[in-house]
C-alpha cells in the first residue's frame, strides 16, 4: 500500500513519518515513532487506553487517522514527566496506588492531565464522569480517582 509523508509534533519534537491511509494515529505513534507508552486496548474508542491530547483536545489515538495528523501537535504519556521529574499526577498514582497492572494508566494520566488543565479543582463526581471513557480491567477505580483528586490538590498548592 502506498505510503504518504506527514510531519507532526509529538511532545515538543518534530517528526517525519510515512503512513498508510488506513493507519491510525495510534499505529503511527507506536509502530512508526516507537512511542509505545500509549497503549492499544480496544482500537474502537471504547477503552481510552490510547488517550492523547491533539492540538489541546483529549481524544483516542485509535479514532484518528495518521493522515489527519499532518501538522498537529500531539501530547502523549512520554511527554508528561519533565526530565527526571514526574508530573504530580504520576507521583500521586505511585504514592497512592493509583495503578494495578498499569495498562490503562498512561491513558488515565493523559486524560486526567487534560481535565486538570481545564478544571484545576474538580469534584469527585466530575473526575468520575471525565474518566468514564477510561476503562480499568483491574477495576481499581477508587484509588485511581483518589489519586487524581490528591494530585489536583497538590497542583493547586492547597
Amino acid at each position, binding site marked *: 500500500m502506498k505510503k504518504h509523508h506527514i510531519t507532526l509534533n509529538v511532545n515538543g519534537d518534530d517528526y517525519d513519518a510515512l503512513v498508510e491511509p*488506513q493507519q491510525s494515529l495510534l499505529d503511527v505513534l507506536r509502530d512508526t515513532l516507537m512511542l509505545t507508552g500509549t497503549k492499544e486496548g480496544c482500537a474502537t474508542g471504547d477503552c481510552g487506553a490510547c488517550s492523547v491530547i491533539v492540538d489541546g483536545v483529549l481524544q483516542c489515538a485509535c479514532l484518528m487517522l495518521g493522515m489527519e495528523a499532518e501538522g498537529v501537535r500531539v501530547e502523549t504519556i512520554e511527554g508528561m514527566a519533565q526530565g527526571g521529574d514526574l508530573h504530580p499526577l504520576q507521583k500521586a498514582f505511585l504514592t497512592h496506588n493509583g495503578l494495578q497492572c498499569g495498562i490503562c494508566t498512561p491513558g488515565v494520566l493523559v486524560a486526567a492531565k487534560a481535565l486538570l488543565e481545564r478544571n484545576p479543582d474538580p469534584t469527585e463526581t466530575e473526575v468520575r464522569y471525565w474518566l468514564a471513557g477510561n476503562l480499568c480491567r483491574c477495576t481499581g477505580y477508587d484509588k485511581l480517582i483518589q489519586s487524581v483528586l490528591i494530585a489536583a490538590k497538590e497542583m493547586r498548592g492547597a
Partner: protein
Amino acid sequence: MTDLRYEAPGSLSAAVALLSDAKGLARVMAGGTDVIVQMEMDLIEPELIVDIKKIPELRGVSPEDGGFRVGAATTGMQLCDHAAFAAAWPGVIDGVKLIGSIQVKGRASMGGNLCNASPGADSVPPMIAAGAVARVVGPDGVRDVPVEQIPTGPGKTSLARGEIISSFFFPPRAKGSGDAYMRFTPRTEMDIAVTGVAINLTLDASGLCTAARVAIGAVAPTALLVREAGEALVGTKVDDAAIEKLVAAVRAACRPIDDKRGTKAFRIEVTGVLARRVALAALERARATP
C-alpha cells in the same frame, strides 16, 4: 484489498466533486468516531475517505437570523463549550453530552451522529424537537431539509450520491422556551440508548403552552417526530392530564425491536416514563428563562 485514498479538501465544492467522482465506496468523515470503527471492524471497506474537517464553514457556531448556524463537523466538546448555544438549547446539549466519552466528544459531531443513522443516536431527537434544519450541499446545489427527514432507516439516509450535510440551523428561541432530552440506559455513561425522548416547548406569559415538539429515539428504525405528542401539550399548562395524553401519544408512536438492550414492551413502557420526566424538565427550563 484496494488502496484507501484519504482526501481532506479545503472547500465544500471540492468535497462534493470528490464524492461525486468516486468509483467505489466513498465515506464522508467528520470526527471519524463511527467511520474509523467501522473500518477497523471490517464492516466497510471504502475506497475513498473525504475528511471534511478542513472546510472552514463546517466548524464552529455562529449567530444567524436570531438563531444559530452550527457547522456539521463541529465537535461535541466545541458545542458544549459554546455558552450562548448551550444556554439557548440545553436539551440539545443533554443529547450531545451523552455521545460517548470525553475523548469521543473531542472528535464526534452532530453531523456524523445524524448521518451514521443509528436509531439510538443521542443528538438526533433533541435536534428534531428543536426544529433544526440541515443544509445539504451536493452536485445539484444546496437544499435545506428538516433533520427528521435525513435518516431513513438504520445506517441509511435520504442524502443522494455526492451530498454532504454542511451545517444545521437552529431557529430563533421564543421567550419562555425550554427543551430537554433523556435516555434510558443500564449504565449512566458509555452506553447506547434503549429509548430516548426529547421535548421542546414554549410557554406564554400565563404559563400556557403555545408550541411543543416531541421526538423519540431508539424505538423505531429512525428517530421520530411525534406530532400528536406535541399537540397534546399545546393549549394546556402542561398539567397532569396533558402529560397523560403526551405519554399515551409517545407510546402509540413507538415501533421498537426486541434486542439485547430491551424488549418491545419494556421500551414502550419506559418511553412513556421518560416522556413525563422530560416534559417536566423542559417545563422547568422554560419557566426559568427570562
